[in-house]
């Protein structure tokens, strides 16, 4: 019983530490860099990888409501994790970037090479 209690206490400590860590990361700023040569995006949506639970349009966070090329966009309301990113350009073309890793990195880049599979 004593051993079990010790184990329980240890597990609680680990859980608390984990929660603290997640909570610290939850306050982190995340960013998307538009490193394409000439593409502006009017829609930037993130969903946990493998789902279609797209969040709000993050492009609206920008002053002119678009993510211009060469610009960086602040992403809000995210927790660390793997995401799919749906990008909608000014012509209405939609492109998906899969498995964008925001676990350790706090930003990702959109390059021209990311826009190969678009509809």
């Amino acid at each position, binding site marked *: 019983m004593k051993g079990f209690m010790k184990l329980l206490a240890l597990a609680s400590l680990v859980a608390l530490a984990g929660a603290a860590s997640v909570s610290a990361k939850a306050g982190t*700023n995340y960013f998307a*860099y538009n*490193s394409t*040569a*000439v593409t502006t995006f009017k829609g930037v949506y993130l969903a946990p990888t493998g789902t279609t639970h797209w969040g709000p349009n993050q492009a609206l966070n920008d*002053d*002119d409501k678009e993510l211009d*090329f*060469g610009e960086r966009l602040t992403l809000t309301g995210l927790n660390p994790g793997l995401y799919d990113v749906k990008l909608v350009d000014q012509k209405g073309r939609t492109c998906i970037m899969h498995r964008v890793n925001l676990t350790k990195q706090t*930003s990702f880049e959109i*390059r021209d090479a990311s826009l190969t599979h678009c509809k």
Partner: protein
Amino acid sequence: MITRRAALIGVPLAIAVAGEAKAALSGMAYASNEKDNTVSVIDLAQMKVVKTVPTGQRPRGMDLTSDGGRLLVCLGDSNRIDILNTKTWAVEGSINTPDPEYAALRQPGNNPLYVSNENNALVTVWNIDTQKMLGQVPTGTEPEGMAVSPDGQLICNTTETTNMAQFFEYPTTKNVANVLVPPRPRWAAYTHDGKAVWVSSELGGTVTVIDTKTFKILDTIHFAVEGLRSTFIQPVGISITHDDKLAFVCLGPANRVAVVSVPEHKVLSYVETGQKVFDANVKKYLLVGERPWHASFTPDEKYLLTANGLSNDVSVIDVAKLRVINTVPVGQQPWMVLISPS
């Protein structure tokens, strides 16, 4: 398109300067890496990074005091400018100011410092020794480029969204002129005789030459590269030689630096920074030198270094030969490179 005439002008010009470019590189260069939150210190004799200095968030614009002893680094996401000692790399002081994008020191005297506060539509003025604010000037939307005339009397700020070059007098900061320029003006550079200021327009794909007495537009320089869509030509950084003969304009996604005759306002040549270089370590050709943002000359102006935001490196251009002679990997998304004056 590069005309045959322009190419012919460029060749003798290159040859004329070529005989002088024999000195080995020396000194230190500093690259601000906006994604890494670091400054890379490059030993030019070794052509490699010898130190990586952690900074606050999103280092972009930088300026050096005239003796090279202090490096000022704008930290946009940390809302401050750090003043770093370039010997010890200790932070000697900080200027707390919102969203500093770029800052320029008035010379001579290393004071005051003019700061573009991008999201606040302000230029703020600071004493870098006391780190006290001396004044603030309202600007158009998204102030970015900042230049102080060689005599220190006229300050030029470019506003990205308002498409203006705005001029202020020293020391009153009185707004003396606003000049409309093509879209998204990002940078301003005075000729060394102080008679003109060159303003790059990233979306307009042009450089506007403005007379600093009349504030009239003297010329608009256009760029064209054969086989490249015009939208890829996005001028940002401008570096002008001290004799006011040549200007080097970084063209962003065009992966080139344009060489422009300053007296004639004519493009002479284009130096490709985006090119394949054989890397012995990985035994393959690597494409480097992508999206040059800004550039700086070595003190003797025999070499020009470009900060390449997409390929995470710095290209070293031999000014006489007008070609890239080396590439130095730095941190992620280098935005600006400065070279110590000594």
